[in-house]
């Protein structure tokens, strides 16, 4: 009986649905949630943000503290920029370049001076904030949508930086793991950059 039920459900699962290209963003879950979901469901944003979190985790807490705060604010400013100056060129390229630059810095375990880290974080945030708004802006409530994007930015960077820092504290392999993930991110970005400029 039980086996029959399992088989029936399994068959139903495989046969019945057509393409379930589901995504809550488009079900109008609310502008705030649309804003929060857009960057975390788009690899082009999520992956370099992870790298940025790892890079902050590699720094001393004193250096990283301001970057954690500046990142969501600069993302917010980036979404505003998209409203003011739409259609800036090369934003996508800059975002893919952020895979390589930030991922590479993680792979090298670069200890940056506070102003350099802050500058890098703000640049990456502006370009990603811009792209988040540019894709989804029309007909939306800007304040709610942009707040959502900023909140997601804050959550991603603090959670990842905190986790990375905790992982590396007292575990010699922790920093190797973080650096390896950085090299993966840089590698994926370099390949996609090559694809964008040589094929697409």
């Amino acid at each position, binding site marked *: 009986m039980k086996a029959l039920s399992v088989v029936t*459900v399994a068959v139903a699962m495989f046969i019945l*649905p057509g*393409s379930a290209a589901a995504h809550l963003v488009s079900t109008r879950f609310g502008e705030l949630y649309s804003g929060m979901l857009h960057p975390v469901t788009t690899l082009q944003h999520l992956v370099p943000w992870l790298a940025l979190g790892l890079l902050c985790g590699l720094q001393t807490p004193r250096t990283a503290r301001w970057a954690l705060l500046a990142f969501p604010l600069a993302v917010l400013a980036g979404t505003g920029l998209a409203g003011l100056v739409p259609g800036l060129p090369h934003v996508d390229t800059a975002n893919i370049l952020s895979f390589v630059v930030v991922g590479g810095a993680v792979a090298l375990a670069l200890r940056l001076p506070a102003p350099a880290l802050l500058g890098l974080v703000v640049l990456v945030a502006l370009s990603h904030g811009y792209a988040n708004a540019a894709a989804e802006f029309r007909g939306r409530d800007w304040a709610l949508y942009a707040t959502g994007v900023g909140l997601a930015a804050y959550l991603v960077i603090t959670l990842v930086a905190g986790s990375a820092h905790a992982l590396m504290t007292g575990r010699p392999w922790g920093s190797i793991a973080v650096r*390896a993930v950085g090299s*993966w991110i*840089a*590698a994926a970005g370099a390949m996609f950059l090559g*694809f964008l400029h040589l094929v697409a």
Partner: protein
Amino acid sequence: MRPPAMLIHTVMLALLFGVATDVAAHAEAGVAGGLVSGFLHPIFGVDHMVAMVAVGLWGAQLGKPAIWVLPITFPLVMAGGAVLGVAGVPLPAVETGVSASALVLGAMVALRVRPPLALASTLVAAFAVWHGYAHGAELPQAVNPLAYGIGFVISTGLLHLTGIVLGVLVRWPAGAGLVRACGAGIAATGVYFLALNLGVLA
């Protein structure tokens, strides 16, 4: 659960899946497909897979700093090879190179060869270019090229990790023997694929 209740649950579940209609998708399409195809690419080529495990095993056998230098530099060099593949720059004997990498890296582990770090890194990096090229050549056809790239980098990294974890066995004498036997197995797999690629085996 009583059988009639279970039947009702089953029918309801089946209905749930059955009535699911399309939900309009997000701008970035094909992420799952791209990730899966990229992730599986290094695993479905057996010579690719064993060569990547050999990198981890050799790193573990050589100890610090090779144990972390090899897995961190490999993806970066591989990306360079992948860009050559994406661009369609002709590289000779790609499949032969991949099979040869399984043979050579497996033999290094089996014979416990301990060259200086620079030499070991150069050897591994040279093979990384061929592996990257083979994966990269298929990147433009992927449903989502970015997801495909991320998938195969993660997959390659996890294969290195598998090798490193297996390589922890070198702390014990019996384990060290087992690691060398793994290396011999990998080299033998390389020989088989090399023979296939060179047309010696039909």
